[in-house]
């Protein structure tokens, strides 16, 4: 039902998430923000089981901030991703595993931009582009077809729009709006919300 997408460029990462918080057949909230700011240059996008998403994301968020307070410097995106994955893995075989699917996007001074894909079985993969949700079945092929590592910011936003238009056309569920953010060496920038209109 929910959808996450991330596209990495040469010196930026573009991420987007839908804004619906649903409960069975009802949309309870139409402006839910599924992106959690872990630090100035790291975002965690989180979807999955109700309750688990916010709890797990806030738990990771507070622990990342605690690390900074205790040690005086921040975790890099790669370290943050591995820390997150370790926590997922630790809970996986407990009585109460967290059923969440994540994208972690960040910019590192030395390594540059990074997009990390994690799923509820605590797999971790660094990828140039990634998506979660039923919408991924429709859009991963679009990303395969049109992605290039040297995309400019505008081209990446156009590619994102292509994906969202495809969802609007073919996906059975209505996802009326998407939050979009871009991370580069300056930090996290909020871009305009994408709201696909009309049937094609």
């Amino acid at each position, binding site marked *: 039902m929910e959808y996450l997408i991330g596209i990495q460029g040469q010196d930026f990462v573009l991420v987007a998430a839908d804004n619906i*918080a649903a*409960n069975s*057949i*009802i949309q*309870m*909230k139409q402006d*839910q923000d599924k992106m959690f700011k872990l630090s100035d240059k790291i975002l965690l996008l989180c979807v999955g*089981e*109700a*309750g*688990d998403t*916010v*709890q797990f994301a806030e738990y990771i968020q507070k*622990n990342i901030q605690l690390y900074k307070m205790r040690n005086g410097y921040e975790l890099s995106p790669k370290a943050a991703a591995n820390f997150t994955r370790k926590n997922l893995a*630790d*809970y996986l075989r*407990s*009585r*109460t595993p967290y059923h969440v699917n994540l994208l972690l996007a960040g910019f590192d001074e030395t390594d540059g931009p990074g997009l990390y894909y994690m799923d509820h079985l605590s797999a971790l993969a660094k990828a140039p582009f990634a998506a979660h949700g039923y919408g991924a079945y429709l859009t991963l092929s679009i990303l395969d077809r049109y992605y290039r590592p040297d995309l400019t910011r505008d081209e990446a936003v156009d590619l994102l729009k292509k994906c969202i238009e495809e969802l609007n056309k073919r996906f059975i569920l209505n996802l009326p709006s998407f939050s979009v953010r871009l991370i580069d060496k300056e930090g996290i920038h909020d871009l305009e919300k994408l709201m696909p209109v009309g049937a094609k």
Partner: protein
Amino acid sequence: MALFDVSGYKSHAGLRGQILGTGVGHLIDRPNQEFAVPVGVDPSGFLKSCSREGGVSTDLNHGTTTLAFKFRHGVIVAVDSRASAGSYIASKEANKVIEINPYLLGTMSGSAADCQYWERLLAKECRLYKLRNKQRISVSAASKLLCNMMLGYRGMGLSMGSMIIGWDNKGPGLYYVDDNATRLSGHMFSTGCGSSYAYGVVDSGYREDMTVEEAYELGRRGITHATHRDAYSGGVVNLYHMQEDGWIKVCKEDVSELIHRYRKGMF
């Protein structure tokens, strides 16, 4: 480090074991451990065996419609009053709104026992907060407390869908909290098995600039139409209005009388 000891800080590994996974359920203030559940007990499996699926003809109280919406002059809260146990009506005048303090209300849907217990516990925690901090608790914090209580018993078969309504320094507050620790802030929520009907009526009749009387009528309509269609909701509409200087109870009207009044438009 001296601060470590004074602050009572527990390391990451110690906390994790304490919060989840050791089979012991904890409440928020640790010295006062209620419901320590022994390892190996499976409350949700036990509950399943007690219900219709397990061949026993008793079901927990589940049916309800409650709604709350923000508008220019505060927050309207409307609830029905039917408590059902399977197809038996256990009570036609159950009280589904808990008056936590003059500035905080909680609604109840789902299992009556769970709602009543946990929301009364929330009321106790709000009172303690006020005594400790000399300041009324914010709606956001109160809802977070309830959410964390639900989190402690995750996967154990609790059933609660509730809304926390209040007025604090940030203005009117409305939060939805449920048994899987979902916590959402919003302008309008409805819970219970009649909620979809209530959403239909309130969404189509809502305007941000309604007068107070129009808002009362919309709340009444939402519950009444939901009770008309949903077998598990009924009784009376209890209507509250959360204003800047506290809540007031507006009215308590029988649903069957209201539905006859609305008949002209319906049939």
